[in-house]
């Protein structure tokens, strides 16, 4: 789009196609383009480079809402890692465990997926490979009870961060969302700080907004980890999610290995969307 030499009607059409095919969504795209057209009419944007810069600014601004540190000062703090089936939670828990351990924290992993076949085994293998402590339960065990025990253990053994992997779930299933609320309640009643990270697959379409909203309503939302950004999907649904829920994106998953995790950089993310 930006290789064109002048601001024609065609450029606006190409821009709309670029944003929509990046999963930015129709209404967010229309809001953004509306903003930019207004600026062009006022003469604030006159040529293609100005348009690109203006668009870049608009997109970054939407991602920078609600940015605050993911406070990890309490000891221990429980981090619930939640999200849709197959989004990348278990792999992300392993990556975060390694990340915080390298940052000097004492990390305890909790294999809170007691539902899916090999849910616990999958995290256990990562823990072994990374030299991380992991608490697991039997398949079919109550995940909330497992968390209760893990908290007691974390306190007794002086862990800073308790990273809890949870079973994948569809946000329209009320009983499953209630289970997450119950897990958070258990930690809070133990006077433990709880943070919730939502894991969102970068290739998710407009359903990502409903997902984020439902998880936030059930168990709070202190941050988002967007995974599989090493694929061709641009993750454009994040703009609507950030806009509507003010939830900051914290990390990005860039592959299937434990070190394929980077801290979210809005500038780099927007540059990639506009490529």
């Amino acid at each position, binding site marked *: 789009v930006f290789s064109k030499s002048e601001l024609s009607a065609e450029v606006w059409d190409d821009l709309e196609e670029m944003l929509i095919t990046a999963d930015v969504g129709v209404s967010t795209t229309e809001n953004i383009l509306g903003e930019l057209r207004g600026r062009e009419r006022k003469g604030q944007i006159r040529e293609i480079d100005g348009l690109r810069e203006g668009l870049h600014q608009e997109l970054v601004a939407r991602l920078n809402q609600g940015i605050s540190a993911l406070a990890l000062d309490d000891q221990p703090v429980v981090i619930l890692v939640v999200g849709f089936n*197959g989004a990348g939670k278990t792999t992300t828990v392993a990556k975060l465990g390694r990340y915080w351990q390298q940052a000097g924290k004492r990390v305890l992993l909790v294999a809170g997926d007691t539902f899916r*076949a090999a849910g616990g085994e999958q995290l256990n293998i990562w823990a072994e490979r990374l030299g991380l402590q992991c608490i697991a339960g039997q398949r079919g065990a109550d995940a909330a009870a497992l968390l209760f025990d893990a908290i007691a253990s974390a306190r007794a053994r002086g862990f800073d961060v308790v990273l809890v992997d949870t079973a994948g779930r569809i946000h329209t299933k009320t009983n499953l969302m209630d289970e997450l609320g119950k897990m958070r309640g258990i930690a809070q009643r133990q006077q433990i700080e709880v943070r919730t990270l939502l894991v969102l697959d970068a290739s998710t379409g407009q*359903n990502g907004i409903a997902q984020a909203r439902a998880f936030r309503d059930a168990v709070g939302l202190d941050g988002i980890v967007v995974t599989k950004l090493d694929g061709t999907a641009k993750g454009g649904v994040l703009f609507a999610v950030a806009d509507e829920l003010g939830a900051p994106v914290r990390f990005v998953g860039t592959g299937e290995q434990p070190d394929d995790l980077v801290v979210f950089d809005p500038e780099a993310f927007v540059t990639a969307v506009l490529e």
Partner: protein
Amino acid sequence: TLSGKLQAVFERLGQKGKLGEKDVEEALREVRLALLEADVHFRVVRGLVDRVRARAIGSEVLQSLTPAQQVIKIVHEELVGLLGEPGKLASGGAPPQVIMLVGLQGSGKTTSAAKLALHLKKQGQRPLLAAADPYRPAAVEQLRILGRQTEVPVHAESAGDPVAISRAALQEARSNHLSHLIIDTAGRLQTDNALMGELQRIKAAVSATEVLLVADSTIGQEALRVAETFHTTVGLTGIILTKLDGDARGGAALSVREVTGVPLKFLGTGEMLEAIEPFYPDRMASRILG
């Protein structure tokens, strides 16, 4: 809903007298919006709206007492036409039928492999599952557990090359006179040339009669490019769309169908192994329209 929005559009337009071609354009804007919000690919939507426009500017809509309903009817018919007839699993030829499940990471391949095996078993068939994902931690164990749950044998090895594993599984299926071999492969990006090459080699090694793309129904615009690449690189014979027990509209079904021409064969509708259903184009069209 779309029909509600179209009612509102035509009520407002109808108040000024007879409807004209320009008025249809406003209705088409709502149709386009609905399809894009349902994650149908931008270019597929353009083609669809053009086809709807060609039909909607006739008397079918302009002289109808219920123009909104007429537009919905036309859109629904176009969607059903594009979604096509549900496909069946390949049959005929010397057993075993070899089915490969392929797709992006986390789309539901391993779960769908077990579901397909159970589905076949209930039809009196004798399937074998092959755990050809040696990369993901506990992937083999995951399929082993699902095999035990469904009482379907699983060919699993402690380590190794997916091509060799698949070949050995075929050998086992043949010597046990089994009807179907279902190969669960590792999730992969369609841009990973090495791993896409691996799929080509597995397919050739076992002469697969079915290659099913397992796609998450919540996938957005990228569904088009992903399906296209899997199809041109490996050759697909069918699609399984998963996680339809959620509230994603599933517009990816249209994009995938449009770009590959490959039939939708099954729908995944839950985490339980019984949660697999045949695909009904009529129901899918209604779901996408929202």
